[in-house]
């Protein structure tokens, strides 16, 4: 019988050591409505309170055996620390993800920003650090603790108007390059602070640079370099996540030096596996909404098997676990990964 803990399983995977089976975890938010109800918290509450955030992050492990605890749940941490105003929809009883209310950069002239030296003391970064420590105390011996930062381009889209940014990436790539380099410095400062709090792995979310929006050529010329800068400074296992169409950029993603890459259901995983070879760590591809929320338990099981057969290195949802996932689907996902012996992994 295997006595290996979920934490060891995940850490071994990152070190490309032998694992008894592939793990089931995520680098993105994964709180469920079911857990929120049990805890008596509203979604809006878990972004502003370290204890509640930590509790929520541990809930998918505690309730379903999901093999990680990841926090926070929104994409506004860095932008807020840099001076943007955010909206957490405090009035809302439902699930509204926090958004940026007021941008930092309002014109092309304002793009040469200065990154404050004490960035790590700003916004909710201290809160997040505290939450990571609480989560670690709570479940850190059993599961890997993860967090995420944004990629420079996606962060740029948070601190300035995305449409402007997209056009400038074409018309004035030098200016955009400069901004991305500055933001990379900011992200590194945040990443170091989070790593110091005791993380086991860190995901870099660069979904703004998906091939649904930007061409692979622009990815290579503009996006890749600042990403490499950030990832080279992450001293723990790192995962580069991009959703949407990614088949044409998986090679560029791996070249950033990330320990693993993460893609969503729009990626043809078998094809990516072929492109990147058998040793690359590729996570993701499990459809978090159409399968995990909308699907039957049988559909969930099928999808898990397909991910394994297509060569996924971990069962890992293509984006945040959607809070409305029915508990029985969550259980089905966890069970299937333990039961399914198929998918010759040699």
């Amino acid at each position, binding site marked *: 019988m295997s006595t290996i803990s979920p934490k060891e399983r995940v850490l071994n995977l990152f070190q490309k050591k032998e694992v008894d089976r592939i793990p089931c975890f995520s680098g993105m938010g994964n709180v469920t409505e079911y857990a929120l109800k049990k805890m008596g918290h509203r979604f809006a509450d878990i972004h502003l309170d370290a204890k509640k955030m930590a509790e929520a992050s541990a809930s998918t492990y505690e309730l379903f055996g999901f093999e990680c605890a990841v926090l926070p749940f929104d994409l506004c941490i860095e932008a807020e620390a840099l001076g943007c105003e955010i909206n957490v929809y405090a009035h809302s009883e439902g*699930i509204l*993800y926090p958004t940026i209310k007021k941008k930092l950069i309002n014109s092309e002239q304002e793009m040469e920003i200065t990154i404050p030296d004490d960035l790590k003391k700003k916004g909710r970064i201290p809160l997040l650090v505290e939450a990571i420590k609480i989560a670690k105390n709570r479940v850190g011996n059993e599961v890997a603790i993860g967090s995420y930062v944004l990629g420079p381009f996606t962060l740029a889209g948070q601190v300035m108007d995305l449409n402007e940014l*997209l056009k400038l990436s074409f018309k004035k790539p030098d200016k955009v390059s400069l901004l991305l380099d500055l933001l990379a410095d900011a992200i590194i400062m945040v990443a170091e602070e989070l790593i110091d709090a005791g993380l086991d792995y860190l995901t870099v979310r660069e979904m703004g640079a998906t091939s649904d*929006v930007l*061409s692979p050529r622009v990815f290579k010329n503009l996006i890749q370099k600042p990403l490499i800068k950030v990832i080279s400074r992450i001293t723990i296992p790192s995962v580069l996540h991009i959703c949407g169409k990614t088949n044409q950029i998986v090679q560029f993603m791996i070249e950033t030096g990330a320990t693993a890459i993460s893609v969503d259901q729009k990626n043809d995983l078998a094809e990516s596996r072929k492109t990147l070879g058998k040793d690359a760590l590729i996570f993701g591809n499990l459809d978090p*909404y159409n399968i995990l929320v909308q699907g039957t338990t049988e559909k969930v099981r099928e999808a898990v098997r397909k991910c394994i057969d297509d060569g996924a290195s971990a069962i890992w949802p293509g984006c945040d676990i959607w809070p409305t996932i029915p508990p029985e689907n969550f259980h089905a996902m966890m069970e299937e990964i333990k039961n399914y012996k198929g998918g010759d992994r040699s």
Partner: protein
Amino acid sequence: MIDEEKKKEILEKLKRAVINYDEDGARDAAKEALEAGLDPAEAIFNGLVSGMEEVGRLFERQEYFVPELLMCADALYAGLDILKPHMKKLDLGIKGTVVIGTVEGDVHDIGKNIVKMMFDVAGFTVYDLGRDVPLDRFVEEQLRTDADLVCLSAMMTTTMVGMKKVIDEIKKRNPKAKIMIGGAPVSHDIAEKWGADGYAKDASNALKEAINMISALKKLKEDAEAKAVSE
């Protein structure tokens, strides 16, 4: 009368300017069109819009991506700004007023902006509420502007449910207004289930659908008026 040769040349210039995201080129070609006495509506539709249609095809073939699309849109607007004031009200057959926005909690607005652009070129009066729009705002704005059509965009399955509330409320407050919904997670079935009057999967279909809906609306109005007169 402007000769065919010249007309073709100017239309081609307008079209090229949009495809090559050349704002100055679009402005120059638009001025040339007016000077040559070309019908502004024709310059818009057979020039600028036909350029944008080609851009749409390039986008589908993944030769163009969103930045190119946005820049082409800027070129189109540059030409449109010059031509539009010269357009006679009757040129398009119908005049529509549209309220559009991305629903509360959702900041995904790239798709919404593309749909909005199609309405702008069609000569509709567009009230763009932006993104992350509180649900009540749609209802208030419809009542304030008496818009024919309210367009709701959502890109997330969590925010999409807000559309149903807006639809119910508008149907209650002003049953005459038409509502069209769209965005990646939305489908025909959902639109039907929630009582929306229309759905489109992309921007050009959104415009076709809107024209149909507004024409139907105008026809209803006219019929009712005709009836009232004859009685």
